């Protein structure tokens, strides 16, 4: 079954007030239920592009449509946030209420949703994000970073947006916390049907969780496609100063002995090694 377009971007250009052209002529579509990763070096325009997608930054020219809403020209941000949510890199920038309940309830209240439904949404978002009701009365600032990140995500989930953009979800977190956050995003994608866009520098995370990758450099989309397709483009990734995961690089070095150059997981590598080992020598 063909998936429907959720975001349509055409000829997008964005300039900062200092005159820097951060985004240049991007045209790309995203589909309902995708798990997408934006990758690229610092300053390549990933964050700027994603802020343009949900209208935080107004595009200089071009068009963006999210679920049919014209993001560039709409003056009403309330309709937009019902469709696309943005979780900032640093949770401390988006927590400003005195307790966790009010923090999660803040966005639905901005949309003038009746208090009964707000309560329902808070309970639902907190449960999905793993925030227990026992801590609802506590101050969000006094939680550990992993929990603050979850509260930040829950405060967006309470809007029930179709698309959730998460800026560097694993930065500053240890392996366990990183896996927890990514498993949580995977669950939102697979179980609840949210379209997820992550901005990240961690290629292992991309290889394990993303289904589609957008490679950016100098404010442009250099390449996009499935994770296997993108990681197989060695020269192109070098141009963008991106190193694929170690297992992919190993497979690429062993291409001459029969390994595929687009292997992205150790499991797949092992499976192919077993297949190759079964073949008679010389074939």
């Amino acid at each position: 079954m063909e998936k429907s377009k959720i975001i349509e971007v055409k000829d997008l250009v964005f300039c900062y007030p200092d005159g820097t052209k951060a985004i240049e002529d991007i045209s790309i579509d995203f589909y309902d239920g995708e798990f997408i990763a934006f990758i690229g070096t610092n300053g390549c325009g990933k964050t700027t592009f994603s802020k343009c997608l949900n209208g935080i930054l107004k595009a200089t020219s071009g068009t963006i449509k999210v679920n049919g809403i014209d993001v560039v020209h709409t003056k009403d941000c309330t309709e937009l946030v019902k469709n696309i949510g943005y979780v900032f890199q640093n949770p401390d920038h988006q927590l400003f209420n005195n307790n966790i309940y009010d923090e999660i309830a803040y966005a639905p209240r901005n949309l003038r949703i009746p208090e009964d439904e707000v309560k329902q949404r808070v309970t639902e978002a907190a449960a999905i994000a793993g925030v227990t009701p026992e801590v609802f009365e506590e101050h969000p600032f006094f939680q550990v970073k992993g929990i603050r990140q979850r509260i930040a995500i829950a405060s967006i989930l309470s809007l029930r947006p179709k698309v959730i953009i998460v800026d560097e979800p694993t930065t500053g977190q240890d392996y366990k916390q990183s896996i927890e956050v990514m498993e949580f995003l995977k669950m939102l994608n697979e179980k609840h049907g949210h379209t997820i866009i992550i901005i990240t520098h961690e290629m292992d995370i991309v290889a394990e969780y993303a289904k589609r990758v957008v490679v950016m450099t100098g404010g442009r989309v250099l390449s996009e496609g499935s994770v296997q397709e993108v990681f197989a483009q060695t020269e192109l990734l070098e141009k963008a100063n991106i190193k694929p995961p170690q297992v992919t690089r190993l497979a690429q070095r062993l291409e001459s002995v029969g390994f595929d150059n687009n292997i992205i997981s150790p499991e797949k590598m092992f499976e192919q090694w077993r297949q190759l080992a079964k073949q008679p020598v010389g074939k």
Partner: protein
Amino acid sequence: MEQTRKMQRTIIGYIPAESPMYALHPVARLILFLATGLLPLFIEAPEYNVLFIIIIFFMLKYSHVNLSRLKIFLPMMITVGIIINLTYFFFPINTEEGLIIFSIGRFNAHFHSFMWAMSIYIRIIALLLASIFYFSTNRERDILVGFRTLGFPFIVSYFFGLILRSAGIFLEDYAIIREAEQARGLDVRNLSFGGKVKHFSMYLVPLFTLSIRKCEDISIGLFSKGTELSGKVDGKKRPDYLKHKMKLQRTDKWIIATIIAASLAVVYFDLVVDSFSLENAWLYRTLRHTWFNL
């Protein structure tokens, strides 16, 4: 990243890199600020300070500062005006003349108090606009070079630099927090004045928490680099790269001399001739004559 029109980031905004202000040495700009900011404090006559305000507007325009940014200072200007007028209404000065403009209950609006409130308000606005002009046309490094060239001790310029940097970080955090609010469906433009005030108070929680965390980071950073707050390193004068790089030109010297001469003239006419007192002001005498026929 490609550049369109090259803009230079300043403390509170952006101006084109080719702004005429960049032709001046930072110390000339600092003295211009001190003159435009401090001279109104010597002048009580409102009409002269209005003239100052007009001059500052011309300088803002000449330096290519985006005048629409002044809108963000409007609430502050209005609030200051209300507070000063209310203060002089409820706690009037020089009431013995008995010149009353109007009364509310047992409170009288005395003419001299009213004029004094106006004089103070216009002085504050002139000072505020001079500050906006200076911080809109200078970067942190320009200000520090100005301080060092004028011979301010290292510790003073260093602390001032840290304050400016903190102000920059504070404004950056403020912008991100506002973006985060917008991402959660709040359009501040649609709020009433009271709503805006309430939401501003909400920003204070993350802003101050972030500031405290960053202050701690900065102090640890300074400690780890073995920073000594002294103008000398190992007994020798501390080298100053930027100060060495920027030299005063002849134009700068002429501008500085002109500003100093003009400032001395204002101080002389104020303190010796008493030309700028409120009672001698044209506006004061005209209104007194119009309202009370005196």
